[in-house]
């Protein structure tokens, strides 16, 4: 996939009209991500229940189509997943974005995989990989309850 193919409908759609935007009232975890080189920013909000299942998730942020689409797609598919599942999906996604050609995971439906793989065009473009992974790293740190801001630089 070349970079222009990257800007396919899924990405443009999520990039221009990101889902799950805005802080909601009763979140109990949050984490920020920041890419100092390009200025992309994301702030994630989560509501975890007692079993560490994600009851609700949203984000605020600004950045390029890739980073916004990535946050939008991620929040969409993480809703309702528990911690173990979330971690597995994050790790599979990061593998794919950095080197693998596709995603193998029982936890994802085919159309979900498709959406994630639409971000795969950034492979080999370290600057854009950072855009695509910003919100994912923020999610990891929200779960680990890091205090400090995540940077992808």
């Amino acid at each position, binding site marked *: 996939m*070349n*970079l*222009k193919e*990257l*800007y396919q*409908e899924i990405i*443009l759609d999520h*990039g*221009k009209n990101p889902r799950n935007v805005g802080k909601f009232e009763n979140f109990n975890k949050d984490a920020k991500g920041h890419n100092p*080189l*390009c*200025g*992309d*920013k994301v702030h994630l909000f989560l509501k975890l229940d007692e079993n560490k299942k994600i009851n609700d998730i949203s984000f605020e942020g*600004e*950045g*390029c*189509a*890739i980073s916004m689409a990535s946050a939008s797609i991620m929040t969409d598919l993480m809703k309702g997943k528990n911690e173990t599942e979330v971690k597995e999906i994050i790790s599979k996604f990061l593998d794919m974005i950095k080197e693998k050609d596709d995603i193998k995971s029982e936890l994802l439906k085919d159309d979900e995989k498709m959406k994630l793989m639409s971000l795969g065009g950034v492979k080999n*473009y370290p*600057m*854009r990989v950072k*855009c695509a992974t910003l919100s994912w790293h923020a999610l990891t740190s929200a779960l680990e309850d890091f205090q400090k801001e995540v940077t992808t630089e």
Partner: protein
Amino acid sequence: MNIDNIKKEFPIFDSKIQNNDLVYLDSANSSQKPLVVINRIYDFYTKEFSNVGRSVHYLSVAATNLYENTRSSVKTYINAKDKNEIVFTKGATEAINLVANTFGQKFLKKDDEVLLTELEHHSNYVPWHYLRKSKGIKIKFAEIDEHGDISLESVEKQITKKTKIIALTHLSNVTGAILPIKEIIELAHSKGIPVLVDGCQSAPHMKMDMQDLDCDFYAISCHKMYGPTGLGVLYAKKKWLEDLPPYQGGGGMISDVKKNDITYGELPNKFEAGTMATAQVIAFDESIKFLNRVGVDNLIEHENDLLQYGEEILRKNNSVKLIGNPKKKGAVLSFTIDGIHPHDIATILDEDGVAIRAGHHCCQILHDKLGLTASARASLGIYNTKDDLDKLNESINNCKKIFSR
């Protein structure tokens, strides 16, 4: 020399980049190199290499002579008074750090003020911030006007009795504004304040005359001036270089070394510690010869033509918003497009072979002021043509098409 043929001197344009002709509009970041410079590096390493200064054998003596020869060429090119006012550094960033560090050590104390502008590159802010942290100095910023310009008045307004040095850019790497540096220096000197000029963006595009400007310090990046990477120049008036303490310590910059004390060498050695970027300095002489061959007047005319043309077509292109509309402008076209993030613009342009830069261009203060997190920037070099700007415009249209699907 016919300026239209000048692209031929730059071998990078001979080959396709990802099946496209390269439209290189990122010269404010770093310029491409003419073949003469590249060949000089090659020849030096293959036939003449030795370290400078410290050995007495033939190769070393020859290298030292060549090295000092570049110092003389730079002196002449920027019309400094004395070749020992030219210090080689690893870049403009190091040049500014050198001044901030040594000037700060010797002349700044708590509550003293350093005056910058909102246009400054991080390189001309972070080193002063260190002094804010370590010494409790204050940093003030002369404010831009609605054109992205810095006026003499906006600088004057911020000067107080406590202002100890003014450090500002000659040509903004974002708005392209050319500052009234000579007037600012006159004003500053009338109040006894020295001035450091960040000449990174001006040096490749303007005529430089240190004696006419009368600045105290001038920082230059050779890699933006058709020279090799890893090299910069600090011009400083002799009295400053004599007065300031040395910066890095090491070989070549000492006079006498005892267990209990050390004395330092003469100018400019005092500021050139350790093995310098020998090959790069020697090759930079070819960059200066190249610039002289082109002629700075021709260069200015050519780039002004391009800039005007570029502004015209981008202004006609609705939805492109140019950043800054300063009185005098050089070599830079920064812009945004509504609804498309600069990074996405740059990525899509790249697919057409059009290389621009997106981001805050190391000018976060300015972008904050303008209410932006990032912008797209096309910047010019001697090798650019109107054709390049047409391609830029086409590719921008292409970009809009993709995003309006």
